[in-house]
């Protein structure tokens, strides 16, 4: 038994990554907490992603928050409109790839905001993974007017 344990201990253990990828705020970052976008316009998404080893992928998700449930990972809340029932809210889910081998990546995406959707409080979610499967989620409250 002791021999077996020692034998196991001596074997070279592969280095493991224990760090989450980061979503870094820069002056170009958009949207930020409480950003306002217009119906019929575009959201010019910009963010800086960084990982200690290698980035994986990311997804963006916009869904309504008329019922004031929250995914927000930002502490301050924006002046929310009263709770209301959704009729035809905007829904956007998209997955993006990050070129392989990158530890830092400036993500950019353009999202159309339809003109016929319900205005109000929305959540803008960023999910970022690294190669090892660590995931960082950032939820931002935005308003569509």
């Amino acid at each position: 038994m002791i021999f077996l344990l020692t034998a196991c201990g001596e074997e070279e253990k592969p280095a493991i990554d224990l760090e989450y990828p980061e979503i870094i705020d820069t002056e170009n970052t958009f949207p930020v907490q409480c950003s306002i976008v217009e119906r019929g316009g575009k959201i010019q998404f910009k963010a800086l992603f960084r990982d200690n080893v290698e980035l994986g992928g990311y997804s963006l998700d916009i869904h309504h928050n008329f019922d004031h449930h929250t995914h927000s990972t930002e502490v301050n809340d924006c002046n929310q409109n009263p709770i209301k029932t959704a009729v035809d809210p905007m829904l956007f889910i998209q997955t993006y790839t990050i070129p392989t081998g990158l530890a830092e990546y400036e993500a950019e995406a353009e999202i159309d905001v339809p003109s016929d959707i319900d205005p109000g409080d929305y959540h803008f979610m960023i999910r970022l993974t690294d190669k090892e499967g660590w995931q960082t989620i950032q939820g931002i409250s935005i308003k569509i007017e």
Partner: protein
Amino acid sequence: MIPFTLLFSGLFSIGEAEGISLMESEIAQVSNSKTTYGIDSINHAQTDTTSKIRELDEVLVIDQAEMIRREESNSIQLLKQDFIRENRGGSLMNSLERVPGISMIGIGSGASKPLIRGLGFNQVMVVENGIKHEGQQWGADHGLEVDQYAADQIMIIKGPSSFKYGSDAIAGVIDIREKLPPTEDGFGGSIEVGYRSNNAWFGGSANLFARKNKWFAEGRVTLADYGDFKVPTDSVFVYDFGVVLHQGQVRNSAGKELDFSVRAGYLGKHFRNTFSVSSVSTKSGFFANAHGLEPRQVDTELHDRSSRDIMLPFQEVRHTKVINKSNYAVGNSFIQLDLGYQRNDRKEWSQYVNHGYMPASYPSEMLYPSDLERAFDKEVFSFNLKDELFLDTHEIAFGASGEYQHNDIGGWGFLIPAFQQYSYGFYAIDKFKFSPIWQLTAALRYDHSRIDVEEYQDWFPSVDDASQVRESDYLYRAEEFQRDFNSLIWSVGFNFTPGDLILKGNLGTSFRMPIAKELAANGVNYHYFRYELGNADLSPERSLQFDLGAELKKEKWLVSFSPFVNYFSNYIYLNPTARLDILYGAGNQVFNYTQAEVLRYGAELSVIHQLTEKLSFEFVGEYVYSEQKSGAKRGYTLPFSPPPSGILNATYKPSYKGVFSNPYVAVDFRITADQSDVVPPEKVTPSYQLVNLRVGSGITVLQQQIQVDAQVQNLFNTLYLNHTSFYRLINLPEAGRNITLSLSYQF
């Protein structure tokens, strides 16, 4: 046989009165038969040996604890009523946390599930009164539906025991037994009441029994009601989202429980039959600010009005069991048949929140109410048949077991599909005592199982624009399929028991059939924001384990050490990938079930030193190391790996005469190391130290004896995180100081 038993009961005569009285009556019986001399006496002696062992096997009498430890080659821990009572927690599994090698996945204050040497869920089998307990073991937020007051004795097998118990016993077994039937004619009962300060828990249990000649009957009712539990902080951060806790209360973690059981039976000299019906019903809230790991904005004023109300989200479970146990002793053979039916009816209630492509408003034409998030309805029929033969130097057991499961699902959420499953197995075990101090055990088992998974189609289309929906946009989360599994396993063990030393070892294989979730999950688990993807091609999990147990009793020392090495050729693992899935996964990270080689090793150590007649010291410690040796997470550990920990204990038992009987005072100092060996999505958990106090005594009031036990858990109200807790990922600390009081009275 007789001197043996006497010797052991002498050494361990700390047991319950009923155990001793049973022993005495048995001994009287044996002595009587010994008065007949002649040729018959051999036969008589043999019959009596059989019935003696029959008692051992059927009802685990703790006075024979040492004998069981000597004769079983697995690492076994036996706990009796006293231990459970003195360490009573919010749930039965909480009460076991002190046992080295055992840790808990806690969810709130009233529910938890066991981990044995770091493995849990479907890898640990819980057996209650001979029948495998079937709940929803796969869910981290699902507790164990067992009445903690009905549990009288618990046998914990650390390490694989599939050869005896079947699939799922790959990491170990928690075998819970209720009280023995009354041994004498008459009528009696017990009442226990308790209070826990942290969550204002009050509850209790009442039990009545009667015996007339060979017939007996018994009944029990257990009630508990508790408020939100308190943590030693006034705010927590769910991710970065700050949550203010009103008076440190974990919002909406209140709950209640109502259990009952009835039992009746016939106790003949050769034939015995017991029929029992039991029901455990619980309703408990989830932390309202984080359903699963999703931060929620809640009406704090509404929630904080009362700390005892249970609002959304909450879970309701009703577990019903009907068990018939019979046994028959004939010649040198002892036959047992256990038949069981159980139903686990679970409902998880939560406000409808549209995630991913779900419609913004809940459609009124839906089959389920808008707040029924998930429902699971499981029915299980099972049997165990066993024939034991007691020969000169061999003890041979043949057994067969079978099970049929029917699983339905409901609610607007989807995690696992409905499925049907059946399995059967055969085994043989031979214990060969080839010398008074040497015993060998060998076992072989074959199992077959089949699972039929039903299809599941989303009730909503996965499209951005609801006006252009095609039939194919209603995604199939599960396709109908069928899998068959076969498994052949073996085990060999030895016991070497010269005098004060017990040395034993076990080498064997074990298996576990993949469960429906592992084979067929295909949906977003919004509790964790992850898209879980099953793999219909998984093969049964196999493990090879070598464990040793050494126990030395010398004068005032009792030292036991149990190391193990364990290798899985194909551990089933939910692997977090870098991928995010747009369609089925609604933008969430993909976690897929894969199989990887895993090496684990560890040990438990226990040292007891009886310094004086009244004062004793104890150290118990546990260590487990796991490493994935292949696959995408090569080099990483396994999820829920408990950090190394130890307990230093001092117990003082003054020898009072008079009003107090058997008083005790005990201090536990628990030291838990940090856990920096983590795997995505886990976080490094810092170390902590806790002090727990226990004090108790029998008190004679008006010539009646009442047992009083009190505990102070987390004496210094320490703020700490438990690495294996369900809420660890959202940094929710564990409960603060808790004073418990329990009174019990037997009549």
